[in-house]
């Protein structure tokens, strides 16, 4: 097909309706994955317009293009690579001043640009009128007013993109000149930078600005080439000179410089014709952030969310299991005729049961969870919840926003892991991921109550929870120290409330669920088949004897207890069922001492997240981190189990 191809990238702040534009443009033709080596979401989609096949890349929402977070690095590397023919900068018309900060940095990158002046309806409501033609004249690129939620202006936006790509309209931004004292120094630096032989072609002015800001990545890039060291030293000298003049760090000086440009621009293009009226948004705003009522509303929202996800999920999960049971039996009957007994059993009890287990997690829990999460995200309630709980969450080294995944974790760790993506930086997502996988989920509760609660007592069961929380805090603390990046206090935009769009909600839910299925299902099915194969080919005995030093020696448990521990990896609550199976009785107190039962429950709670959680970890954080978490939890569980064994042995329980 002779279709012309075009690649465009969407850049913009968070909360400007960027994902809404993306969804409107691409519909369901999108895939969501991670940028290579990062836990930053990468969304891609395609659309057809005027004979063009346009690939749309949704860059992460950022406020700036410094090297502050993984998101910013991803966004700026992509733009600097010139992979995109045109970059669309989505700007919130009701917060023009702050939004133009990113625009100015895109201008510095000298990329072909089209500005979408989004949410002009919201701006009008606030009494803000923007002369977009004037803004276009100042920036030297097309500026198109849009309302992404309703789709207004998107056609004109695409038209502008195509025009710029075809060279019919100027898309190269005009150079923005900063104050004289900075501009003179930049010129001097630029002359030096031009003399360098850099591997990739970046605009030399941009490189000079970044060098002046002492951006660690650009400094590294430049000092690698011949003569680069000298240029970096010159930049450092100039930066120091400017710092001495202003008494502020160079990053602040440059930010202030950009903002002073922006203030002038805004004063030329923006008029405020009426003061914002007090409307329902205002009332909602003061209610949901009220020092007393706010917390009551938050509690209600969270309780509603948890009960929706787990009540609806529980019902659906049970009916899926019931509905598929006869099908599984039928499949086993049919397969038995075609295949040998053992193989059939492996296929059915391994692969098919794994598939069903996956379905019972994904369909009932993940889908309602994504619906609610999208609702909370799109309406703007999340930042309010974070505002209210930031204080509390700081005590455990996390942010206010981490509350949502943490609470979800008590139901099931899988949506909790997926929920970590609402946090802003790579570092915070990781920290939160570490914390969520150790939260006692519903399945762990079954293990704790079913073994310790039933046979030892409720106080002992509670103590396992306490130990679990202590381990969680410890690991989070360790990760807090070990993870790279500076822990920064909360700096979060509070966007106005808005009505979520159904289209965006549904497509987000669908796309995210699909991505989860693609990653998680193979892992669940393979693991399940593997364990079933052990079972049916009589490999259990060798496993028991191989693992005996661990099970009996270290943990002091009956040697057969390794089997339920292995199956607990599939689903934690299986550990109880399989323990009964392995020991041949449901009254564990007859064959195990109190100490053994306690140790078993503790180890089963702590060791390795279940396979579905592990799959979610892989999906969100990559193999390396997922395996690190898994190994770490196994190590902690074994160590604690060993210590307990020793303690119980000494005390004689």
């Amino acid at each position, binding site marked *: 097909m002779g279709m012309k191809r075009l690649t465009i990238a969407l850049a913009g702040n968070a909360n400007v309706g960027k994902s809404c534009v993306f969804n409107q443009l691409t519909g369901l033709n999108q895939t969501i994955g991670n940028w290579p080596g990062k836990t930053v979401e990468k969304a891609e989609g395609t659309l057809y317009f005027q004979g063009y096949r346009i690939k749309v890349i949704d860059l992460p929402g950022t406020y700036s293009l410094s090297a502050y977070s993984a998101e910013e690095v991803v966004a700026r590397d992509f733009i600097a690579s010139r992979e995109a023919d045109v970059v669309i900068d989505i700007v919130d018309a009701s917060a023009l001043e702050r939004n133009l900060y990113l625009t100015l940095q895109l201008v510095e990158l000298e990329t072909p640009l089209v500005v979408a002046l989004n949410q002009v309806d919201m701006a009008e409501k606030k009494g803000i009128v923007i002369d977009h033609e004037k803004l276009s004249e100042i920036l030297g690129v097309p500026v198109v007013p849009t309302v992404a939620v309703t789709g207004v202006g998107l056609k004109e936006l695409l038209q502008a993109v195509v025009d710029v790509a075809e060279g019919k309209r100027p898309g190269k931004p005009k150079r923005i000149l900063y104050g004289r004292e900075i501009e003179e120094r930049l010129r001097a630096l630029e002359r030096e930078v031009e003399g360098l032989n850099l591997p990739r072609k970046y605009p030399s002015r941009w490189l000079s600005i970044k060098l002046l800001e002492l951006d660690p990545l650009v400094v590294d890039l430049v000092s690698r080439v011949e003569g680069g060291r000298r240029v970096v030293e010159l930049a450092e000298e100039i930066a120091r000179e400017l710092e001495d003049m202003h008494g502020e*760090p160079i990053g602040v000086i440059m930010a*202030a410089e950009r903002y002073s440009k922006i203030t002038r621009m805004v004063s030329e293009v923006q008029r405020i014709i009426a003061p914002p009226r007090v409307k329902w948004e205002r009332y909602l705003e003061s209610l949901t952030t009220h020092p007393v009522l706010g917390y009551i509303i938050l509690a209600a929202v969270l309780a509603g969310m948890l009960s929706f996800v787990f009540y609806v999920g529980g019902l659906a999960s049970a009916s899926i299991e019931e509905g598929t049971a006869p099908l599984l039996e039928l499949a086993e009957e049919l397969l038995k005729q075609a295949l040998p007994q053992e193989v059939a059993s492996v296929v059915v009890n391994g692969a098919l049961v794994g598939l069903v287990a996956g379905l019972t997690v994904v369909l009932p829990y993940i889908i309602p969870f994504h619906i609610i999460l999208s609702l909370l995200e799109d309406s703007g309630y999340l930042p309010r919840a974070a505002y209210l709980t930031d204080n509390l969450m700081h005590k455990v080294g996390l942010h206010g926003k981490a509350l949502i995944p943490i609470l979800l974790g008590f139901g099931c760790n899988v949506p909790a892991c997926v929920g970590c993506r609402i946090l802003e930086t790579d570092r915070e997502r990781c920290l939160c991921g570490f914390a969520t996988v150790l939260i006692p989920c519903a399945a762990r509760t079954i293990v704790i109550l079913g073994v310790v609660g039933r046979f030892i007592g409720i106080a002992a069961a509670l103590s396992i929870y306490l130990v679990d929380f202590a381990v969680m805090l410890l690991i989070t603390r360790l990760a807090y120290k070990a993870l790279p990046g500076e822990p920064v206090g909360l*700096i979060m935009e509070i966007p106005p409330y808005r009505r979520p769009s159904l289209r965006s909600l549904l497509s987000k839910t669908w796309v995210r669920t699909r991505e989860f299925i693609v990653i998680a299902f193979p892992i669940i099915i393979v693991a399940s088949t593997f364990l079933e194969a052990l079972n049916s080919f009589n490999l259990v005995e060798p496993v028991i004897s191989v693992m005996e030093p661990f099970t009996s020696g270290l943990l002091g448990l009956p040697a057969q207890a390794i089997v339920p521990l292995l199956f607990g990896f599939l689903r934690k609550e299986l550990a109880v069922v399989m323990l009964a199976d392995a020991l041949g009785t449901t009254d564990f107190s007859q064959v195990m001492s109190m100490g053994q039962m306690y140790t078993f429950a503790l180890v089963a709670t702590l060791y390795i997240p279940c396979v579905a959680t592990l799959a979610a970890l892989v999906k969100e954080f990559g193999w390396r981190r997922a395996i690190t978490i898994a190994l770490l939890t196994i190590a902690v569980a074994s160590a604690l189990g060993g210590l307990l064994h020793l303690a119980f042995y000494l005390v004689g329980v």
Partner: protein
Amino acid sequence: MSEVDIVPCALEVIVALRRRGLTPNDVLIAKELDESPYKVKRAMEEAVKQGLVERKNGSYEVTEEGFKHMLKHRELYVHDVFFHGSDRWSRVVTDWGRHWRRRHGLTGNFLRNFYRVLADLDGRVEELIPLTELKPGERGVVVSAAGGYGAVRRLAEMGLTPGIQVLVVRKAPLRGPIEVEVRGTRLALGFGLASRIAVKRV
């Protein structure tokens, strides 16, 4: 204010008045400080004795020694208010460079800029208050922010640059975050971070 406390404040007033091209005499200083001219006169006599100011034709000029004295006073104020919550910890500190670095984790580069801001400050240092001191509905002008490089820079990128006016919208209870309006957008700032942002009440 006792006479001992008046001296550093008077020094600041003299520097500020000179910058504005005015000639600071006892009456003018007293007016700025809202103290009795008699008290100010007594304090200034003491300051002249210590060599902190020079008196010529009834007006004052701060000496180099006096300027240093004023800077020390500013440093102590900022230290107590922004880093220790007014617990007068500064009285037991002897080695300041070491204290800033060890106890507060500030880098040499930050300190250099910090002293620069102190020296360039226009007006009395007591006008600087933490952003968290403002009540909802009050406005302040950002003077400077202390903290890690990443945090300070992030604040600037989000629009909290020196000289910008902010409006405190609301504060969460129990040292929770503070919500401010700046450049037409709302930001929530963690308490720890916000308490290191120096503002002047408007």
